């Protein structure tokens, strides 16, 4: 695929052109950090915070989505079609996460039409990370801060200019009249890549983890690990791949609406049966479910681990729980089992 050099001016022009006819979203300043918002000018883009407070999952899987309206006579009123959208400055971990979500929701013969149409209408212009936050660990899982998975176009800042690499045809179209990148830039970028990767020291054997996790289902470690957990939903709601939802109907003055809203396996209500029985009645079983889901259940379902190493669950946890420490502990137990 095509790789080009884009100067700051050219990037501004490109974005201005896009903003004039499509909804463009990017990380902007918000309460001391960055978060996604629709932008009307390039100047609003804020990429200093490494990553945005919230992941990009809401763009294809909104936290509250109107599925349909229906009136007293039962006639469904289908909501208006959604708009084309461009996400500018999405980080490689979050783009990978959207790909993971897509694997869950868009499958041959059983696709979720709501997520599918959003995926189809979304273009992802990624920005490679040239530095990491203390909570970043994508590389520990075998990914890279310069990955292109899930993106349409990846930008990498190389000495004041941007190397733009098309990943899909959608991305290539954006580069139509730009000059191709030369060898020097590609070499400099390779150096940047290995430098940023070296900032992340942990390495997790995720294959081993997914293979052995089922054997830890009844292990006492979950009791210990979950002691400090307060069972809020901050980790799951800020997780770029957590995708559990609840469906709820609301009726007002004879008109009803059906919504899909995010739900979290950390909530008691999540697993409570109509009978009142709750198979995940305690903190440790809910904590276990989250870890099992990230590193084992989803590998069974779609062949992917569903942790991308963005670190949001670490920085959002009100109890200072670090998923890296949990994974390391589980791996230590697994290593001990073999002996």
């Amino acid at each position, binding site marked *: 695929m095509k790789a080009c050099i884009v100067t700051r001016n050219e990037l501004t022009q490109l974005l201005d052109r896009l903003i004039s006819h499509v909804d463009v979203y990017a990380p902007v300043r*918000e*309460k*001391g*950090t960055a978060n996604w918002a629709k932008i009307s000018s390039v100047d609003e883009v804020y990429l200093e915070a490494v990553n945005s*407070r*919230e992941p990009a999952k809401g763009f294809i899987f909104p*936290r*509250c989505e109107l599925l349909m309206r229906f009136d007293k006579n039962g006639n469904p009123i289908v909501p208006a079609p959604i708009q084309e959208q461009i996400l500018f400055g999405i980080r490689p971990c979050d783009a990978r996460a959207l790909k993971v979500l897509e694997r869950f929701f868009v499958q041959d013969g059983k696709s979720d039409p709501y997520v599918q149409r959003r995926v189809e209408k979304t273009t992802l212009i990624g920005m490679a990370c040239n530095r990491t936050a*203390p*909570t970043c660990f994508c590389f520990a899982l075998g990914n890279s801060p310069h990955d292109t998975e899930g993106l349409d176009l990846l930008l990498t800042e190389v000495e004041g200019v941007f190397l733009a690499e098309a990943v899909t045809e959608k991305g290539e179209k954006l580069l139509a009249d730009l000059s191709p990148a030369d060898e020097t830039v590609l070499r400099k970028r390779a150096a940047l890549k290995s430098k940023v990767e070296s900032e992340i020291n942990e390495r997790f054997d995720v294959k081993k983890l997914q293979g052995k996790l089922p054997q830890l289902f009844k292990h006492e470690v979950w009791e210990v690990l979950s*002691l*400090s957990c*307060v*069972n*809020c*939903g*901050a980790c*799951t*709601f*800020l997780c770029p791949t957590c995708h559990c939802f*609840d469906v*709820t109907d*609301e009726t007002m003055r004879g008109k009803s609406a059906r*919504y899909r*809203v*995010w739900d*979290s396996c950390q*909530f*008691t*209500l999540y697993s*409570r049966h109509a009978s009142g029985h709750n198979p995940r009645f305690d*903190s440790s079983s809910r904590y276990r479910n989250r870890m099992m889901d990230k590193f084992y259940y989803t590998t069974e379902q779609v062949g992917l681990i569903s942790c991308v190493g963005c670190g949001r669950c*670490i*920085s*959002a*946890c*009100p*109890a*200072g*729980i*670090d998923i*890296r*420490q949990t994974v390391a502990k589980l791996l230590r137990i697994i290593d001990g089992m073999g002996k």
Partner: protein
Amino acid sequence: MSRTELLRKRANELLSQGVVKLVLGYRAGAQDNVAQPFFATTPDQTAELIFDSTCSPNIANYLLKVKNIGRVAVIAKGCDSRSIVVLLQEKQIVRENLYILGVGCEGVVHNGEKSVTCKACQYPNPVIYDEMVDAPVEKTTPGPQVLKADDDFDRLTPDQRWQVLSADVARCIRCYACRQACPNCYCPVCFVDASTPQLLGKTHNISDNMVFHIIRLLHMAGRCVECGACHRACPMGIDLMRFNRRITKIVRERFDTSPGVDINSPPALTRFLPEDSQEFIK
């Protein structure tokens, strides 16, 4: 000996002498983020205990998790001890099952700076304890004061105030980290989780979000000790202390009391005094 060393020594002794079954404190958390509440059950584990400005979760919250295992030592700073008082007054925990290791606190960190609650802290030292681990710290803030932000807020018209609050609360993702981080939010079934019948909508429209926050706030009136655990827990950075400061101020002005300070003074809304203002009775 440093405070952390003294703390480890005493915790170790309490466990080895069998005075307590468990020591509830903190150990280092992720990076320089937030210390992790830690449950030491053997003397060796006390080597992991720390106490510093990252120890921001309200530790009283965790007493409810271990209330049935016997006597527990708990490392408590000023605000934690006030929450313990509230929990004792509300009969959620038993004094005999507690051994409070008091620590003076110079304030905890939130987003790289001193937490907003700590900047106005009136009780840096525990109000109740079995022993102080170290000498009490000196209180550096004057008496209750109105923050400039609150003063500015008060000058707005009711409509403007509603707009400011709505804009903040609209960002709530209903993860309930605020509720879960609060030691005083211990209802077995929270009103937001009631499902038969459902009391609150699950969508994120502003009225549902606002109802959640206002009802939680009403439940906190006369009980909130302004520890700021909810404020720091919010992953969206919603200014929850703005709400909490307001109810605390109202309770202080109307009932001349602050929650969790005096174990013998019942919570404002659970008592009646003839001199309570009754202008609402017409």
